[in-house]
């Protein structure tokens, strides 16, 4: 962000990072911030001072990203932290997800909004079990693009052969998880020295691909499912009556998928009533057409009864409306899930009572396979369950739509978030090597 005359970043990319402890993730993220000049002088001074205190001759960039005091004291990171940097091409929102404690919770959280994930390995250690698990969770959550940063390449003498073995092993694993060619890129980097993070390395002439930042700036990713069928959870009904806006009644929400145009025929679910879109309002004026991701207000042709929690959808491609479905749950609570649990499900703008029937399978993260009929689902475990809701919900399969296929499981007693829910049989697919990422339309535009 050095100079003022640069153009506005025209695009926003949300990404997540994951890796095992000591692979150099903090250093890598610190390096990205440092080399994109996203670190300001006073912060940098503090890091320089702290580095000198630690007896280091060069600044320890990992100090740029270290967080809460308890973590600072223990020298570990335990929660997802968000970082921001920008180049003239893009603005970046980076979810930094710590790898060891509670990795499922953190990776699921970071991955839920990510369009791309950077996985780290130590070039001396190669692809570990942990790397495979992370990749599996990223695939399950439908993160469309993966980057493997083969870090500490300086410690293996910038050896191409070492890199190639790791890159191939990882690509094979990602392919088995359902990642098509072009959606996975491996890059040899040294976070410590700065090779191939922002600046191209002089030591890896054999590597002809982009640096990490070049890739982040150019990788084609759609932030929202534009080409999927139109979905619009109604968040709020806006009503007013003024001279300018007589008996105004508009349905406010953020387009979850697809596009909507004036005159489109829509259906309101779960009721099933049909009408057309009379206007797409924004405070800046009317739109003829609006795309996924935009917050708008829809005015409909007919007066029908619509309230918060309803879903407005394309009349020609409407979702299933059901009170019974199969789902994958990533369990995030210390209270284990037992069959028969009564919970709340938050889907779109609607929260309903629900009942978890049987637990069909659990993902065995050690073997990277599934176990049938587990007795319970514990913290950080992922399983397949049957869910029954008190009211029907308009749902899509998560593999088709990351927005309307997602839900939260909430504890009715204390309100805590118990699980991340994904509609459909994502887990089974993962086992068979055809995960969520495959279905999501735009998800996969093959990379350069």
């Amino acid at each position, binding site marked *: 962000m050095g100079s003022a005359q640069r153009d506005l970043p025209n695009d926003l990319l949300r990404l997540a990072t994951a890796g095992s402890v000591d692979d150099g993730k903090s250093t890598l993220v610190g390096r990205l911030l440092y080399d994109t000049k996203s670190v300001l002088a006073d912060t940098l001074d503090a890091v320089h001072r702290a580095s000198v205190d630690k007896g280091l001759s060069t600044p320890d960039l990992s100090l740029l990203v270290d967080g809460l005091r308890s973590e600072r004291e223990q020298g570990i990171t335990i929660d*997802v932290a968000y970082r921001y940097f920008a180049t003239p091409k893009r603005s970046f929102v980076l979810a930094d997800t710590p790898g060891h404690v509670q990795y499922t919770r953190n990776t699921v959280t970071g991955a839920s909004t990510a369009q791309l994930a950077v996985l780290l390995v130590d070039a001396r250690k190669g692809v570990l079990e942990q790397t495979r698990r992370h990749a599996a969770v990223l695939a399950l959550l439908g993160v469309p693009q993966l980057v493997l940063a083969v870090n500490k390449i300086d410690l293996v003498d910038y050896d191409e052969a070492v890199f190639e073995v790791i890159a191939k092993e990882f690509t094979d694993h990602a392919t088995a998880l359902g990642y098509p060619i072009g959606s996975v890129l491996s890059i040899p980097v040294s976070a410590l020295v700065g090779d191939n993070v922002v600046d191209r390395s002089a030591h890896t002439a054999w590597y002809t691909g982009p640096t990490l930042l070049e890739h982040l700036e150019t990788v084609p990713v759609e932030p929202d499912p534009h080409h999927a069928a139109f979905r619009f959870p109604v968040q709020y009904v806006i009503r007013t009556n003024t001279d300018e806006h007589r008996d105004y009644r508009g349905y406010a929400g953020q387009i979850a998928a697809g596009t909507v145009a004036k005159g489109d025929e829509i259906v309101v679910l779960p009721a099933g009533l049909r009408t057309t879109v009379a206007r797409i309002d924004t405070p800046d004026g009317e739109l003829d057409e609006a795309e996924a991701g935009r917050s708008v207000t829809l005015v409909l042709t007919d007066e029908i009864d619509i309230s918060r929690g309803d879903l407005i959808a394309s009349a020609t491609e409407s979702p299933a409306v059901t009170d019974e479905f199969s789902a994958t749950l990533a369990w995030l609570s210390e209270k284990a899930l037992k069959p028969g649990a009564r919970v709340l499900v938050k889907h779109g703008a609607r929260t309903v009572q629900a009942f978890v029937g049987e637990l069909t399978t659990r993902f065995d993260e050690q073997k990277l396979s599934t176990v049938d009929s587990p007795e319970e689902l514990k913290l950080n475990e992922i399983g397949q369950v049957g869910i029954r809701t008190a009211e029907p919900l308009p749902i899509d399969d998560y593999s088709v739509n990351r927005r309307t296929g997602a839900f939260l499981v909430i504890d009715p007693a204390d309100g805590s978030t118990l699980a991340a829910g994904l509609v459909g049989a994502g887990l089974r697919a993962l086992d068979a090597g055809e995960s969520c990422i495959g279905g999501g339309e735009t998800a996969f535009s093959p990379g350069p």
Partner: protein
Amino acid sequence: MTQTLSKHQDALDRLESEAIHIFREVAGEFDRPVILFSGGKDSTVLLHLAVKAFWPAPVPFPLLHVDTGHNLDEVIEFRDRTVERYGLRLVVASVQDFIDDGRLEERPDGTRNPLQTVPLLDSITSNKFDAVFGGGRRDEERARAKERIFSLRNAFGQWEPRRQRPELWNLYNGRHRAGEHVRVFPLSNWTELDVWRYIQRENIDLPSIYFAHEREVFQRDGMWLTAGPWFGPNADEPVEQLTIRYRTVGDGSCTGAIRSDAADIEAVIAEVSASRLTERGATRADDRLSEAAMEDRKREGYF
């Protein structure tokens, strides 16, 4: 408005849509939300987004100002003008009232930012506010990088790391027990530069102190403070007439100005883009007290 709307959404459009989504979720799920409004740039942007979220209906929440009593006149004028323009209700929680009736004691250093916690919590409790919008951004300070968009506070306003919920997709869980409330930060993912570019794009009115002007100031702890009714300057602190501007609005006794010639929004954006100091580091004495100052105050319930 005559802006031509393109279908393509740039980074600011996306941040705007996200913030509007958050406002509408809170309106749909909470009984008594309130927007913290200081007249500062972040809370002014927050209010602008709230107005957009519910347009053409009025914003369905009141505003709350925690008033340290150490204000620059321009800011209070701006506050009142803005409240009137949007026809909103303003609740003022006054630090001075609490000092006057003995519920709070003036600190030896005269700084009142840390004293804001008690009036804030008192106002939240007595008005039964259950969602409190703040303009906090995660890029402001390291301790904020892990803050949630929906940040659960116990009955004492405290932030307990262990009880913070994972935030998945754009599904926010606002459940809370009676007496608890949720702090909501719609600008979480904005950077300082995003805020300024948005102010420019949307042509948002700000207090004049954000732009370069001449002012009588004196130097303390490396900051330029406005000479005024609050403890300053001391005898050994000479007053100078300088061209300065403020980067944040806060207790005038510990919020510093910077020397700057940036007199309009373009100049401010150029300055911020090239800036070598984070806004808090440059201008807030209370954040300099200790490395973990921000985190401590968050635990205390200030944010």
